[in-house]
């Protein structure tokens, strides 16, 4: 076991190799490792973010679906209401129309009644005069008794 200049040679070789390693070998490899780590971290983060986005989108979709359902229900409700309203309006209109027609008919009837009455009145006067002439065998002065006859006709 001789100690000799091999020690010095080994020390020189050691520092040369260590320097070479620190200058040319270590930095690129460590940098590549760090880069890959960052890439993977970014990828994982993106995946997490995408998952969150998906969750949000699903939430929004569910919400929209719920809104749409509510809207649809509202619209159907409104439509039903409107239909009822239309039916009611139609009923009201029909009733009014009926009443109006009835009123018109009654007015006409009354008019015809009064016409008939007028007609009758005139005829009653003539008949009464004719009857009285026959009874009295003499003509009655229509002019003299006209006023009397008109009073009679008006009282009918």
């Amino acid at each position, binding site marked *: *076991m*001789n*100690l*000799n*200049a*091999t*020690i*010095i*040679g*080994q*020390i020189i*070789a*050691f*520092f040369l*190799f*260590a320097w*070479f*390693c*620190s200058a*040319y*070998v*270590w*930095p*690129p*490899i*460590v*940098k*590549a*490792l760090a*880069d*890959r780590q960052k*890439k993977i971290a970014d990828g994982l983060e993106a995946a997490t973010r995408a998952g969150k986005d998906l969750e949000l989108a699903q939430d929004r979709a569910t919400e929209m679906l719920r809104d749409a359902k509510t809207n649809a229900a509202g619209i159907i409700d409104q439509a039903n209401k409107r239909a009822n309203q239309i039916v009611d309006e139609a009923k009201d209109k029909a009733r009014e129309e009926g009443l109006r027609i009835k009123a018109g008919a009654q007015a006409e009837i009354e008019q015809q009644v009064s016409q008939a009455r007028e007609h009758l009145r005139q005829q009653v006067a003539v008949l009464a005069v004719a009857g009285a002439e026959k009874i009295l065998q003499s003509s009655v002065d229509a002019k003299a008794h006209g006023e009397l006859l008109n009073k009679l006709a008006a009282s009918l």
Partner: protein
Amino acid sequence: MAEAAEVAGEELASAAEHAGEEAAYANGGEYINHHLQFLTYGKHPEGYPDAGHWGFAHTEEEATDMGFWSIHVDTMGLSLVTGLIFIALFMTVSRKVTSGVPGGLQNLVEAIVELVQSSVKTTFQGHNDFIGPLALTIFCWIFLMNMLDLVPVDLIPLAAQGIAGDSHLFFKAVPTTDVNITAGLSLSVFLLILFYSVKVKGVGGFLGELAFQPFGKWALPLNLVMELPAFLAKPVSLALRLFGNLFAGEVIFLIIGLLGYWQAFLHIPWAIFHLLVIPLQAYLFMMLTIVYLNQAHQHH
């Protein structure tokens, strides 16, 4: 370990010869001893052939006598080769690294880098961009050097002997079984500890930590006696832990190698067990480096 080698050597010398091991070894002890010698390059010392000239040591004594200014060409060379393999492997990936879908080799490299990165993140509280690549270099380089322990113990030496044309050539393959290599690594870490301690805390702060803790300034000698050995033990323990584990494993492989045809039954279990030791020791060295440098960056 030495007794084990001796016992194995005496008992198994005949087995080795029977199995057709290198006839060059007189017995098992010599076989093991030969495999534990380094290919040492230095100035031939006085009293040896070619004294005063530079060359490879021919014997163990000559290698020792060459003194400090000699070098283990085998372990140093394979240490550089494994380091270059590590750099080349990681460079090919870092050149065309992509943050998209990674390919096969990039997957492997990324797994290692992430292991190192998470170890640094959980252990190192300061801010220093050099700790990560430093820990990666330590882990991968030591791991590759240890892996050479799984190459059959005779293969690399035989190849080296074949290339050199010298059947007595010493060649030790696993760099981390050379205490010079592990000490070189741990001393580098020790230098970094010193550097960052002084850089973060200043010279005064760093020396103050050694001198005024844990008992305050009135117990300065006692503090020094407690803190200095603990501080100096860091590089020693780092170097010897790695060296001891791998050296022991190597010696066991060598002893198993003496068993002739029977070695297959022991070789495989021991190699499988060693599969645990190899990454564990590399990981330990890396973690302790991070821990020590973390202490260097922290104010107490």
